[in-house]
């Protein structure tokens, strides 16, 4: 979609995007010539279609850049990513399988925040486990008994960025199950390597 300032016959520039509100995006455009402002307010269907393209909406230089870390962080919080029908996520049925955070289930967050370059993702990173330190004995070492929710080290969390955002929460759940089955309280890079070897990678 392009917007034209008719009096100036000039294309309008996207100025900013307000946080999503009940499925609607408020996108402000400004005419660089006369300064006239207007806003495009999307309906949920339009928002959904744009989100389905996996693109970001924002001013030049903010959207479309390779801001994968931030995008991944938002995705890490379960926004704009998968929800498995009727429940928090695969493997969560046994209770201990869930991470226990909104991050993996996507609960309580607007699923369209990932469209917006400026979304605050700090809490998402923390919720994703990145902010938590190792617990129990040495990192990756077997604990006395399986922890309900293994803790991810920053390094292990960072490596998970290689997994597509949609798939990542499910992969995390699978890795957490792998760790729990072996009594690991912490998931670090050693555990990831062990999982790779176990799955023949």
């Amino acid at each position, binding site marked *: 979609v392009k917007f034209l300032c008719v009096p100036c016959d000039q294309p309008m520039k*996207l100025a900013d995007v307000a946080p999503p509100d009940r499925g609607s995006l408020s996108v402000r455009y400004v005419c660089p010539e006369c300064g006239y402002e207007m806003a495009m307010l999307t309906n949920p269907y339009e928002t959904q279609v744009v989100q389905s393209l996996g693109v970001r909406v924002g001013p030049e230089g903010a959207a*479309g850049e390779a801001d994968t870390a931030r995008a991944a962080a938002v995705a890490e919080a379960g926004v704009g990513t998968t929800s498995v029908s009727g429940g928090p996520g695969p493997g969560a049925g046994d209770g201990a399988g869930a991470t226990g955070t909104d991050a993996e289930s996507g609960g309580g967050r607007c699923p369209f925040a990932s469209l917006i370059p400026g979304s605050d993702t700090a809490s998402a990173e923390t919720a994703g486990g990145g902010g938590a330190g190792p617990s129990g004995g040495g990192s990756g070492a077997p604990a006395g008994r399986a922890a309900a929710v293994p803790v991810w080290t920053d390094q292990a969390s960072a490596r998970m960025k*290689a997994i597509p955002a949609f798939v990542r929460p499910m992969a995390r759940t699978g890795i957490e199950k792998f760790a729990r089955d072996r009594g690991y309280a912490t998931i670090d890079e050693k555990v990831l390597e062990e999982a790779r070897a176990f799955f023949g*990678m």
Partner: protein
Amino acid sequence: MKTYHDIAGDGGSRILEQVADQQAAVEEALAGVRHLVAVGSGKGGVGKSTLTLQLAAVLARRGRAVAVLDADLNGPTQARLAGVVEAVPLPGGGRMSLPRARAGFGVFSMGSLVPESRAVDFDSVAPGSSHTWRATREFTLLGEILRSVAWGRLDALLVDLPPGAERVVQYAEFLGPRTDFVLVTIPSALARGVVSRSAAALAGAGRRALGYILNMDGYACAGCGEIRPLFPAPDGRDFGLPCLGSVPFDPELARLCDQGVPVTEHPDLPSARALAGAADRLLHALEVAP
């Protein structure tokens, strides 16, 4: 007054450029893949997934580097067929590494990630309208998967397509002109009719089908060992394509599939011999393809 095409860019988001970047990233990720082979049909339940996995197993046995992508995101079966249920993809070398089937090749399937008791669903703020956006979302996800996996150097990446004659064309457009198609049918007139539509759609889109495989073409009688028909005699329609092979229905193959065991571990089965022949003809077709 200026019109749409008079204006460069979209004033900010670069939506079209972002989509083009995604496609370029897919091509870059697949740069080491020599042949992209999509196995489709149009008809459901004809054995596309079974043949995809088993053809890959035979090709691997022949020393070819292969991998399988289960493009049926909603009804994934490759995880079970390959024995990689609950074997999740893991990070490695900046990309995603895939779990390995018993036959040694990598497999991506949503079935590794989502239990069979659950449906794959996406967040949406437009409830009740998934028909307007879901296909787009699925292809976006598929693109994300394609560009995230460390495919490495492959002789062939086999893509198991979901059913639907229109889907064959959608995937042909999505995967690009370098993709070769193999169509799977069973002898029934019903299935052949649908596959015929898929073949016509592919031809209409200017995409190349290497041939078709006739699956469930009779069964081996447990008493006398003879191959007997499961369906009325086929109508002789060949879709205008070469037949790459004819695979009999084999309960033993079905059992192996449920257990994630490749048929190459039982090479004396009638279905194994037939699949080996089909894989060889597929290899030949790939080698001679322009």
